[in-house]
């Protein structure tokens, strides 16, 4: 039964293999115009302008620099003009993208977390044919590891074999990040205790930091709308149960958050603040950006922060990253053995209209292929701290004193879950979940708050028809 459900979750393997080119020969006939030829003549796109809405820059100025360089190189090589607009997460989670797309103001391509693009899926182009027919064999082999995660992301969609998100970099939420100098000050043996093994171990280490006076609040739990459902807690829930630890069930027809694994995870999370007093009074409204900043300043000792906050660490404490004083490690897990959820940074191509639509779409695809070259995969991944899609670039990124890629790969081995790109995911994960966690951190009843949350989501799901978004 479980196997059957698991199989349902996955993209049909045959479909994916077809997409990734193993069945290329069978698919070689009748290709769309877009993917007809792939040896691109220099300056092929002279006079073509594409609009690129970028969000990946938002927490890290060095990533912005890397993207700007890649754009310049692409323009030089192709003759195209890439108009980059710098955006933030709130633009796609909030109304900006949806209202603009609906009003006809659309870019040629944009990058965002995969799960956030579900609400505007009807405007996007699938990548299946392009991946199958227009990527070289080596590239296809190196990106195939992403297959089960794409399938997991597509759960709940009737067209779950379609790939609308071209993954380029990815994060797993969330690694642990620590100050090694604090371990020494507190007299804790770093080598024996790192990475953190379990919840109890986490509490014990934080209490030792606190008792030693190294940090008043050694860690942080997050109650801010965005981070409560994104940065920490969902990782704890997946650690309890791979299937029930996600927000939605496998076909996204029900919410899981009032299940036993979730309730236990939330209770433990809240206990860090209310029972053990290891998190700051800011907790009901705090986010991981604050925690990253305080870690850099030495006010925190051990926090779970997103890789994207590496930008803050680079700004505030570059030397501590270089000399290994600040280090990353995999998050602890629970009975499920899985760690966290994949945040998959993807590119999305938007269907174009007008007489130059095809050439713009082709140019956008060429730009994505350009970013898939090992050079640019590494150039962006280095400051971003994320894992590039191309597996053959991973070795080049290992070996830094901060160990961020090693932590990432260790978490990847536990087969993390992926947040669904179901159009309701964003509302359930951020808009409705955050305030409830904030309330619980402020002392309100866990069962009551989560009960009301689930009741609200279920009432929304009752009227929800995903076909509206196709």
């Amino acid at each position: 039964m479980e196997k059957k459900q698991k199989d349902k979750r996955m993209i049909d393997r045959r479909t994916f293999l077809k997409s990734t080119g193993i069945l290329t020969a069978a698919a070689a006939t009748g290709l769309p115009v877009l993917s007809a030829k792939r040896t691109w003549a220099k300056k092929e796109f002279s006079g073509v302008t594409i609009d690129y809405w970028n969000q990946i820059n938002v927490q890290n100025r060095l990533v912005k620099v890397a993207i700007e360089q890649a754009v310049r190189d692409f323009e030089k090589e192709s003759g195209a003009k890439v108009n980059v607009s710098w955006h933030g997460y709130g633009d796609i989670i909030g109304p900006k993208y949806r209202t603009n797309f609906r009003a006809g103001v659309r870019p040629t391509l944009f990058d965002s977390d995969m799960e956030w693009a579900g609400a505007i899926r009807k405007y996007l182009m699938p990548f299946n044919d392009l991946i199958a027919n227009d990527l070289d064999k080596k590239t296809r082999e190196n990106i195939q590891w992403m297959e089960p995660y794409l399938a997991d992301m597509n759960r709940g969609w009737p067209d779950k074999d379609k790939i609308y998100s071209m993954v380029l970099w990815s994060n797993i939420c969330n690694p642990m990040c620590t100050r090694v100098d604090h371990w020494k000050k507190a007299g804790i043996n770093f080598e024996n205790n790192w990475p953190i093994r379990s919840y109890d171990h986490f509490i014990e280490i934080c209490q030792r930091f606190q008792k030693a006076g190294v940090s008043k609040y050694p860690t942080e739990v997050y109650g801010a709308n965005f981070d409560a459902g994104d940065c920490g807690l969902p990782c704890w829930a997946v650690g309890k149960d791979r299937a029930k630890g996600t927000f939605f069930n496998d076909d996204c027809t029900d919410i899981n958050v009032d299940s036993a694994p979730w309730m236990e995870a939330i209770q433990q999370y809240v206990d860090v603040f209310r029972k053990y007093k290891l998190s700051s009074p800011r907790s009901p409204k705090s986010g991981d950006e604050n925690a990253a900043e305080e870690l850099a300043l030495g006010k925190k000792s051990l926090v779970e922060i997103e890789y994207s906050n590496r930008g803050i660490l680079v700004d505030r404490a570059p030397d501590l990253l270089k000399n290994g004083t600040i280090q990353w490690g995999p998050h602890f897990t629970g009975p499920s053995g899985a760690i966290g959820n994949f945040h998959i940074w993807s590119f999305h191509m938007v269907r174009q209209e007008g007489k130059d639509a095809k050439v713009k779409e082709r140019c956008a695809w060429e730009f994505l292929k350009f970013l898939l070259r090992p050079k640019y995969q590494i150039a962006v991944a280095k400051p971003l701290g994320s894992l590039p899609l191309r597996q053959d670039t991973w070795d080049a990124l290992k070996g830094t004193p901060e160990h961020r890629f090693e932590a990432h790969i260790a978490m990847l081995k536990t087969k993390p879950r992926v947040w669904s790109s179901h159009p309701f995911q964003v509302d359930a994960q951020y808009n409705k979940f955050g305030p409830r966690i904030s309330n619980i951190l402020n002392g309100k009843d866990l069962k009551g708050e989560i009960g009301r949350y689930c009741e609200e989501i279920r009432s929304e799901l009752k009227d929800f028809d995903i076909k509206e978004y196709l």
Partner: protein
Amino acid sequence: MFVAKPMDRVSTAIRENALAYGLLVPLIAFLVLMMWYPFVKGIWISFHHWPFMGQKHNWVGLDNYLWFLKSGNFGTSIVATLVYIAGTFIQLALAVIAAVAVDQKFVKGKTLWHGIYLLPYSMPPVVTGVIWLFLLDPDLGMAQHYLQQFSILQEPVYWMVSTWPARLVVTWCLSWTFWPFMFVIIYAALQAIPRSHYEAAEIYGASWWTTTTRVVLPQIKNSVLIAFIVRLSWNLSKISQVLQMTQGGPGYDTSILPVFMYREAYFSNNFGRAYAIGIFLLILVMIIIAPMVKMVHRAFKES
């Protein structure tokens, strides 16, 4: 006796006042298209499941209203809204005090004072929000620093974390940003009081307090009422600071009705529920404003 038919009377009236009616057409068209049609459609939408990006709109009757009443957030939001509205009284108090003070004969550099007073209003609300967030920040804020330095506070206060401090901060920030609007209107009304009235009061030996309460306030009452009503209804449309400073939190504690409405419309994609909240907001505003409008009418009649 000849009695004109009603239709004849209407057509005669239109013919005789064709120009006047013609001039009214653009305004009426504007009101109908830009205000009344969206308003009526909003009411219609509130009875539907109406997803922003979707095409199907199912009739759900009163479900959207009942959802909000039963969600556990209705009471929280109403309290937050009433506290937020109370900011209008703070704005009024600041504006009256400042206008009366600047209007005193002995005050020098009136233009400079006007400039200083108008400063918060001249800045975008988001900027004033950032300033106050920074001032009150428990770790970096200047206000916290001095409060602790002078031993008024032993520990920093995390204003945005608890219910009432967060409500008070957003209400204060709203008041501080928008009180100059009332100041301008009240100060203009003060300027319109003839000097002879002050001189007469002085001749009769009236004190400053008597002059203010018996001469000044009665003459600026109408302006104060109008400024208050306008400001009150505008305050309820000012959600940028709340969204920026607290995002409606902690929990839903600073989620005033318009913030809820915005979140439902643009984060939850549920226009049906958003408009239902809008109707609750409309009812609340009408309950508060109706007696004031009546007072204005009465005051105009008396004057």
